């Protein structure tokens, strides 16, 4: 790889390697209070009484707040406000907040929290989503326990199955997964004049502002939300975490208030990846053409809605993979239970269904005696084709290119040789080591989908110097978006990245650029900033015309420190004074012209094919992953190092999903509350041999041809692992994660 120029490196990296960057958990102020949350003692119970008197007597405790102290709407939720800020009549999961304690020290706040006495009438928790769906089940919410359901039919699946030469059918189960960002939920709230400022981890500060204002009963302009650089998010900081609680304590005490979740509190209280049970039945012709696909999904959304509905819709949208299927029937349910609560997580529903769909594709290939790569290539969508749900794929479809890139890749091309490469083991062990190579292909909707407002507004200010300021509200959560913004501005203007300043993540300074989710920020903010640059140049053209007394505005382009017209060149300083010249623009993400549900479907997709090599010790059941290849179409790459980094991190998370990670609950109580029991991949579990091949299918509507990458880079990893395990062992696993004991058990069963 050629040496990278300085501007292609992460902007804030120096502040991160020196430890000077202030994260939400690092915020401190004079006279600040520590806030601790009293959480539910049972996963399902009625609250009979709350007594705060003992807590209030603890030295250092300044204030204890309960539901009586919520001045506005005592509820929050991105779509449906069904989660209490502070519970009053009932608790529905172990993370439910019942009271807040503000104290001079963290110890005093903790001591106070222990002494808040809540009397409960304990109820039987609802832990089985199938049982919770039954009409006789106790209702967790007034509308019943089915948060959302989707039913879709295209063609006639029965007729399709009747024509099929092979049909494969199974039930797949995927676990609850924790985001496990290294920085837990944290922040600080304080008054600045008569505005309440909330500095906290977040992924959409304008929506956080709305949610805080609504709960406090204050007008929006009285709430300023900022989201400093935070220590990872992956969707887990999309919903409200600490913001309302912090604001509430600061509102009542008029003092700066700080919260940092402990790791167990983080795992218990925030959203998760939805556990799901998925029944898939797929039929194909003798030649391997998909003919019919029938799917039933039950997604456990836990105690509250958050984004459980849209996540289910993405499961429906992506349940047929990136394939052409004439007959499709899908029935899907998102069900309330007392099992924690689930919401947004990188992949957003696609992760779950891809596990099932890509297993199905391999099973069809096996049943037909076809090559797994060939059966996929035979069925992939092309531009103009109808997606599984029947709408046309209007934009360029890169799935075929990613598959072909994977087929050319070393792991696939040389898989027979690689599978027999066991020299690193002693001769006596070799017979017990099995290697396998698996592939998985997928597509991932980009942006929020049809029907959900999805836009990015940004502002630019050009100053003499030259200096260009970008105001955008989206957040840097590790993904590298801010570096991409600066690279796009630099590329378009000829300015050096250090001449570009970002004023970001602050409702006071930046307009609403939308969510930092759904792989959307490079695409959405990138398009918005290019539009704003056009406007800025128009404005400069007017100013030049005025200065030179020309009849009409001049068409100009900003080129470094100069303005270049067709017949003139002007130094910026002659036109722009210290006030600067500003321009704003809003980019609306293009959407499909049919709407099948909330956010369903998408117009834009990213595509990916993963190839995974696994090695299994059949004596111990131990699984290792020596190599992974990712062939990804996120459009044209803007920030190469960030692209690769996302991909490699996405692979690690996918391996965690496949092999290690499961939030375990027993009767609604969490059994895995820290990294000693909730195991995320360490460096020992992730191969150094990870290759990322950008398959750059230029997206015409994207900034410099770019789309997004942050989800498609992880979704295909787990099913590719399952397919590699099947290749190695001849055993098909249908439940994640696959652990050593599962391998041994299955080999034992196979032997019998």
């Amino acid at each position, binding site marked *: 790889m050629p040496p990278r120029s300085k501007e292609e490196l992460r902007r804030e990296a120096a502040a991160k390697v020196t*430890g000077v960057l202030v994260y939400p958990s690092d915020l401190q102020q004079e006279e600040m209070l520590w806030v601790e949350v009293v959480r539910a003692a049972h996963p399902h119970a009625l609250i009979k009484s709350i007594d705060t008197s003992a807590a209030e007597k603890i030295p250092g405790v300044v204030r204890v707040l309960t539901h009586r102290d919520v001045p506005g709407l005592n509820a929050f939720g991105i779509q449906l406000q069904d989660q209490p800020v502070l519970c009053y009549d009932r608790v529905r999961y172990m993370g439910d907040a019942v009271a807040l304690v503000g104290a001079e020290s963290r110890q005093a706040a903790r001591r106070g929290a222990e002494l808040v006495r809540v009397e409960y009438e304990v109820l039987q928790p609802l832990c089985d989503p199938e049982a919770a769906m039954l009409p006789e089940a106790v209702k967790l919410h007034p509308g019943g326990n089915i948060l959302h359901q989707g039913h879709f039919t295209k063609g006639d699946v029965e007729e399709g199955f009747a024509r099929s030469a092979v049909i494969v059918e199974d039930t797949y189960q995927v676990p609850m997964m924790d985001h496990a960002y290294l920085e837990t939920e944290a922040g600080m709230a304080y008054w600045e004049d008569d505005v309440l400022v909330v500095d906290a981890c977040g992924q959409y500060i304008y929506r956080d502002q709305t949610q805080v204002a609504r709960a406090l009963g204050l007008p929006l302009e009285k709430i300023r939300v900022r989201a400093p650089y935070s220590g990872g998010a992956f969707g887990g900081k999309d919903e409200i975490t600490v913001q309302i609680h912090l604001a509430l304590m600061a509102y009542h005490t008029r003092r700066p208030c700080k919260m940092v979740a402990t790791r167990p509190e983080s795992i218990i209280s925030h959203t998760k990846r939805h556990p799901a049970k998925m029944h898939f039945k797929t039929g194909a012709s003798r030649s391997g053409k998909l003919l019919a696909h029938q799917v039933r999904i039950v997604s456990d959304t836990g105690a509250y809605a958050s984004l459980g509905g849209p996540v289910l819709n993405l499961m429906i949208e992506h349940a047929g993979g990136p394939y052409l299927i004439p007959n499709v029937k899908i029935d899907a349910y998102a069900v309330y239970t007392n099992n924690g609560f689930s919401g947004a997580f990188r992949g957003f529903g696609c992760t779950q269904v891809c596990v099932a769909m890509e297993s199905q594709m391999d099973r069809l290939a096996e049943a037909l005696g076809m090559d797994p790569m060939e059966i996929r290539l035979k069925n992939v969508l092309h531009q103009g084709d109808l997606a599984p749900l029947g709408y046309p794929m209007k934009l360029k479809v890169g799935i075929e290119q990613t598959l072909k890139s994977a087929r050319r890749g070393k792991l696939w091309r040389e898989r027979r040789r690689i599978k027999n490469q066991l020299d690193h083991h002693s001769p006596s062990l070799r017979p017990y080591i099995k290697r396998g190579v698996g592939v998985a292909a997928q597509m991932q909707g980009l942006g929020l989908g049809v029907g959900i407002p999805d836009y990015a507004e940004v502002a630019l200010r050009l100053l003499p110097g030259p200096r260009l300021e970008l105001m955008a509200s989206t957040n840097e959560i590790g993904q590298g978006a801010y570096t991409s913004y600066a690279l796009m501005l630099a590329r378009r203007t000829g300015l050096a990245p250090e001449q570009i300043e970002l004023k970001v993540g602050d409702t006071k300074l930046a307009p609403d650029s939308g969510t930092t989710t759904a792989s959307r920020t490079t695409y959405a903010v990138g398009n918005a900033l290019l539009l704003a640059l056009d406007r800025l140049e128009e404005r400069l053209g007017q100013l030049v015309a005025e200065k030179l007394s020309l009849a009409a505005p001049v068409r100009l382009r900003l080129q470094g420190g100069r303005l270049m017209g067709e017949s003139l060149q002007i130094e910026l300083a002659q036109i722009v004074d210290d006030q600067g010249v500003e321009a704003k623009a809003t980019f609306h993400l293009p959407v499909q012209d049919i709407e099948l549900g909330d956010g369903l479907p998408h117009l834009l997709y990213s595509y990916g094919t993963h190839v995974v090599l696994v090695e299994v010790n059949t004596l111990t059941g131990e699984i290792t992953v020596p190599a992974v290849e990712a062939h990804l179409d996120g459009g044209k790459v803007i920030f190469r190092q960030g692209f690769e980094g996302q991909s490699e991190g996405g692979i690690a998370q996918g391996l965690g999903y496949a092999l290690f990670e499961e939030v375990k609950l027993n009767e609604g109580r969490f059994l895995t509350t*820290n990294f000693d029991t909730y195991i995320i991949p360490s460096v020992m579990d992730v191969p150094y041999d990870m290759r990322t091949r950008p398959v750059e299918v230029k997206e015409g509507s994207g900034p410099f041809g770019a789309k997004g990458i942050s989800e498609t880079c992880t979704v295909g990893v787990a099913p590719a692992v399952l397919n590699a395990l099947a290749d190695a062992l001849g055993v098909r696993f249908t439940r994640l994660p696959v652990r050593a004991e599962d391998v041994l058990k299955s080999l034992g069963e196979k032997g019998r």
Partner: protein
Amino acid sequence: MKVSVNLEINGRPAIFEVDPEERLVDTLRYKAGLTGTKEGCGVGECGACSVLLDGRLVSSCLVLTASVDGCRITTVEGLAGKEGLSDLQQAFIEEGAVQCGYCTPGMLLAAQALLERWKRPTVEQIRQGISGNLCRCTGYKKIISAVRKTARRRAEKK
């Protein structure tokens, strides 16, 4: 009861009055103002709070401040010299070993310690050296590359 503790943090002497149960991570973050040291789990599993204690890599969430009287501590804030970033910090930037950056301080100290132990570490030795430090963003590859690059540069200098 408070205990008086003398420490040398990043080459500078410091005295703290602490409760006997106060953790070193809290002393560093909330008394010394060195918030570069992070906390990720509180039980010594993630390595975000890693510091060097008399040159040895420790999880500062598992160390009681009162127990390390007279010790030398290096935190991430002590890695850069007067002439700027250390070679290791520079390599982390160049190789893209930093994403959200929350594991980075601990990772740098683990890398610093392993480079003391092995001058030209293999990939396996690097893995061993940072195996106590979790990262959720990078997949570790670029971190390993940054350590390898630093080792190579140090060897070339000699």
